[in-house]
């Protein structure tokens, strides 16, 4: 057993067990969202003890310097003394403005923008249903609108997605937390861009594309959309309208989960053409991680590939409730 002290509460947990799960099971109130190391809601500060490997992955320098780590990515092997995070992401009050379907599985959600909210398309924001149930979604627009827009894949029984689709009505309040994440258009005017959206990830990439054009990005931009079925395509019309000598848009209708998708087949031939590009990838985790590897092996620099795998908590890894 390993001794964990959180503020003034003390518990013993099995060595190598998941810290977030144990803290929550012990009744300690830690916000959490994706439980996959992406949303950073479960940030805690380590007062003393050895930070296990991987628990700081993806954190910015400042957070690492100040001994922060992600509880959901922490599997302690020795005693830890923990404190509330000092740099917790700010929470904002917002309201649902409107919602409508983009296709049979994707919901467009527009929320009021809190004063001073700094987000840009590509960053993620956690939408809180209540104090304990939140999920992170990527922003699909920046400062050009006075609302915040998200494209949400609705899962039957989804804690937040089904709530957004079925229960939340225009005018209803909710809490936002964020923004966070490195994706989005910033400081990349000197390189051609390759933007890839898998499934609902195209919403985010469309937002990044609009930001790039608004910033007068003059080098070529390629935007690819990968979907499993033709019915999953959306934003095809506006993307085709933006396509010109500078902007190339293509969609790929792929196959199942394990077989290479049509997009991977295409990149097997052409990936080296994108070696000098700045690349952003957004969407389902398996495909995003495979594409990142494929593009890296074809010569793209690891630092120039920003990947935002849309993780969602696996039922098996969370205790019910």
């Amino acid at each position, binding site marked *: 057993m390993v001794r964990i002290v959180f503020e003034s509460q003390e518990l013993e947990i099995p060595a190598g067990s998941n810290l977030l799960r144990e803290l929550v099971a012990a009744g300690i109130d830690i916000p959490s969202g994706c439980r996959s190391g992406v949303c950073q809601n479960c940030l805690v500060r380590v007062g003393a003890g050895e*930070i*296990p*490997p*991987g628990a*700081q*992955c993806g954190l910015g320098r400042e957070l*690492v310097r100040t001994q922060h780590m992600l509880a959901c990515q922490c599997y302690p092997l020795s005693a830890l003394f923990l404190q509330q995070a000092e740099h917790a992401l700010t929470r904002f009050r917002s309201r649902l403005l409107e919602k409508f379907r983009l296709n049979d599985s994707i919901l467009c959600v527009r929320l009021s923008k809190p004063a001073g909210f700094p987000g840009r398309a590509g960053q993620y924001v956690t939408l809180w249903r209540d104090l304990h149930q939140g999920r992170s979604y990527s922003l699909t627009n920046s400062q050009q609108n006075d609302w915040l827009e998200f494209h949400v894949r609705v899962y039957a029984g989804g804690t937040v997605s089904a709530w957004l689709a079925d229960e939340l009505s225009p005018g209803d309040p909710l809490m936002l937390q964020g923004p966070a994440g490195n994706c989005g258009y910033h400081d990349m005017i000197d390189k051609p861009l390759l933007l890839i959206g898998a499934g609902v990830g195209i919403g985010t990439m469309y937002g990044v594309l609009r930001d790039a054009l608004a910033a007068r990005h003059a080098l070529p931009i390629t935007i690819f959309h990968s979907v499993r079925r033709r019915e999953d395509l959306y934003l095809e019309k506006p993307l085709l309208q933006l396509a010109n000598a500078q902007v190339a848009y293509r969609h790929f209708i792929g196959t199942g989960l394990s077989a290479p998708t049509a997009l991977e087949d295409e990149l097997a031939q052409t990936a080296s053409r994108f070696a000098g590009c700045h690349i952003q990838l957004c969407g389902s985790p398996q495909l995003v*991680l495979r594409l*990142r*590897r494929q593009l*890296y*092996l074809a*010569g793209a*620099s*690891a*630092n120039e590939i920003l*990947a935002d795998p849309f993780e969602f908590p696996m039922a098996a890894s969370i205790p019910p409730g």
Partner: protein
Amino acid sequence: MSSLYEQLGGDAAIDQLVDIFYRKVIRDNLLYPFFDEVDMARQIQKQKAFLTMVLGGPNGYTGRDLRSAHAPLLRHGITDQHFDAVMTHLVDSLRELGVDPAAIAAVAELAESTRRDVLCR
């Protein structure tokens, strides 16, 4: 005498080195099985932090010690042959970047000194 880290060109140079080196490693059929299940970005980040540390750069390595980090690979049959292959890729990467032979020899010596820990002897 400046550190090897500075001689190689600091942070940007280590980025480039890790890019080239890690690409060689996961392209290598002999080594690929050891890396297949590992998140690439995380692995690259650790390689960079580790190389920065051993080369005498700003120390931000937060990984486990080498021995416990590689212990699980024993079960997958890691041997001298694999260690040699990684060494070759590291040296080739440094050559590709045009690093001078004396500095390459120094880096190789440092890397060689980790053999016992990596192979858990």
